[in-house]
């Protein structure tokens, strides 16, 4: 799980489980000390699950607004609680500590769905079947080229299972946004629009722990949006507008027609979108993808 990964990398005393709670946490007050690690694991897993569910709302048929609202409320609730007990602050600080240019590059690679192994093998991940993910991670239906570990993540239902590795946390930030943002980083996503969302999730799952720090950085931006009511407009508003009509269904016609950029805690993709394009320029491996993206966009726009 994410917290364990953080522990390994940064060894913050605050992350130690309750049993060794005699140590004073480095940053946060006593609240985090009393938080049992299994509860926070469960909570984290619930948060990840909820974020994925929100993202998977993008299907051919208009998603159920009631369900989306309930899931979004759950996410907000978890975030509020995490803010209150200081876990939030700790996590964002840990993520902030992880920042460095190299991480950005790695993050970009992850966003481009090119894991080290996959790149070497010259393959791209197979699209995951829609049914598989829809049914809540039943591993039988998930077809992935990734290693067993990933499948274990997908099939694990118990939130406190130790099998959940850090990669499952990645499912959170990258599973969040609608697929169109992935397209900005990697034109390959265009292959199959319906399966894009699944690709995004599978990408998150596939990234191994080396990408943790980078993902943490992106994750920070993601969680940051919970508090940002009006985020900075993305650097490429043209791109935004073009894809703004792929919004979740609960944006009404007004928003769609005026092309106002997506905002708000619902769309956790905000952060990704605001950082995706800049990430692109820092990675040569994605330049070709950008050209592909241009080509595909031309087709869409019909110019």
């Amino acid at each position, binding site marked *: 799980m994410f917290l364990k990964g953080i522990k390994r990398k940064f060894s913050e005393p605050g992350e130690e489980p309750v049993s060794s709670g005699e140590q004073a946490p480095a940053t946060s007050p006593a609240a985090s000390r009393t938080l049992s690690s299994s509860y926070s694991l*469960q*909570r984290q897993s*619930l948060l990840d*699950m909820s974020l994925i*569910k929100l993202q998977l709302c993008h299907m*051919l*048929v*208009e998603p*159920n*607004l*009631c*369900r989306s*609202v*309930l899931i*979004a*409320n*759950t996410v907000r*609730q*978890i975030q509020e609680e995490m803010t209150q007990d200081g876990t939030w602050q700790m996590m964002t600080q840990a993520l902030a500590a992880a920042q460095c240019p190299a991480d950005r590059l790695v993050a970009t690679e992850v966003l481009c769905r090119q894991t080290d192994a996959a790149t070497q093998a010259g393959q791209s991940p197979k699209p995951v079947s829609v049914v598989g993910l829809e*049914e*809540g*991670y039943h591993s039988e239906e998930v077809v992935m080229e990734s290693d067993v570990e990933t499948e274990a993540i997908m099939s694990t*239902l118990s*939130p406190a299972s130790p099998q959940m590795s850090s990669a499952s946390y990645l499912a959170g930030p990258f599973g969040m946004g609608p697929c169109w943002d992935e397209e900005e980083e990697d034109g390959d996503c265009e292959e199959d629009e319906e399966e894009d969302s699944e690709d995004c999730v599978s990408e998150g799952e596939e990234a191994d722990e080396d990408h943790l720090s980078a993902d943490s950085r992106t994750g920070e931006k993601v969680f940051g949006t919970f508090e940002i*009511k009006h985020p900075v407009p993305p650097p490429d508003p043209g791109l935004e507008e073009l894809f703004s*009509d*792929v919004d979740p*269904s*609960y*944006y*009404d*016609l007004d*928003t*769609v027609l005026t092309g106002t950029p997506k*905002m*708000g*805690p*619902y769309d956790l993709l905000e952060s990704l979108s605001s950082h995706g394009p800049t990430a692109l320029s820092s990675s040569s491996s994605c330049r070709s993808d950008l050209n592909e993206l241009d080509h595909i966009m031309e087709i869409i726009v019909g110019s």
Partner: protein
Amino acid sequence: MGEDTDTAPTLNHHGFLPDHNYVTEADIISTVEFNHTGELLATGDKGGRVVIFQREPESKNDPFSQGEYNVYSTFQSHEPEFDYLKSLEIEEKINKIRWLPQQNAAHFLLSTNDKTIKLWKVSERDKRPEGYNLKDEEGRIKDVSTVTSLQVPVLKPMDLMVEVSPRRVFANAHTYHINSISVNSDYETYMSADDLRINLWHLDITDRSFNIVDIKPANMEDLTEVITASEFHPHHCNLFVYSSSKGTLRLCDMREAALCDKHSKLFEEPEDPSARSFFSEIISSVSDVKFSHSGRYLLTRDYLTAKVWDLNMESKPLETYQVHDYLRSKLCSLYENDCIFDKFECAWNGSDSVIMTGAYNNFFRMFDRNTKRDVTLEASRESSKPRAVLKPRRVCAAGGKRRKDDISVDSLDFTKKILHTAWHPTENIIAIAATNNLYIFQDKLNSEMH
């Protein structure tokens, strides 16, 4: 789809699908509704079709044939559509059917999918005119020169034909998915509710509707609550109730204001802080609300309970019935597989003394409000042959002490859910929709309500 008949279950014998009953998605029943006399029963399915069953008249000769329901008419109500602006499909699934009270020989019903409501006229034809002068029996125009005498056409009996025709189409009034429709007691108006708005229609006017409730926030990112169900009061044409995803009920009076955003009464049970979890809000979301026949009570269904409210007491429900409390410890798994979002309906019996609602594993539950007794029954081919008495079922905790025929919580089949049930308006006859099968159960011993 059809009434349960005495056929051997063959679905389990498919060579390549040994563990699953292969169900065509379009056949999944999505709504069930008796008409006001109970003579007709309508079902709608995911494929946009409506099937109407009619109760056979009682026969003194064969007591067993009395009151059985047979197919009366089948028609395609809604077709799949495509919203070009949003690039999304509009499902043809029938969300709700509501009958109009009968005013002449024909029957009328409203059926709705996510976006469009239609008024259908169901009429019988059992006579036809014969003996035209200018047309022959097949309807071909006769050569005038062959007509030598004139006759008056007479009506001759013919085989009964049921004709269904669309009389009104109420479209383009809902941005969000319609979840309820309710006919007003004035028999002139009805309302349709989607996730954020409720509109009032006149049955004769299709190009205009009045918005009476709008809970859409100015900024959609502030959206935290949606409308889940709504219904008119059975006697007071100015009162209606709507429920929300936060577990509240709002009784509104249309005489107070044109836009009923301000409620007359707000029914909400205070939360038990000791039972709070991340799923508290989700399981408190009301999936169905029904006025009692008397109009004095409200019945609501949330994920784990069914509650009876007194219209005069807003602070808490009058009665709370645990439908399947054994799921409370499994909420995380049910959240993961989305079952926690299942919307179960509920129903009153004719005398408002018994309430009924569905559950998983094809179980449905009935609670007697007077005796406080409850029963769990199963709707399945294997466990019920026609005219056999249903056996009460019991769910026990995993590893708990088990009687024969008990089923453990872990063995429940969550794909077999009874979301839609209906109770005959006056008699002890119930209709249960189990995926693509319709079960009709009658209580022969206690036909009269008490």
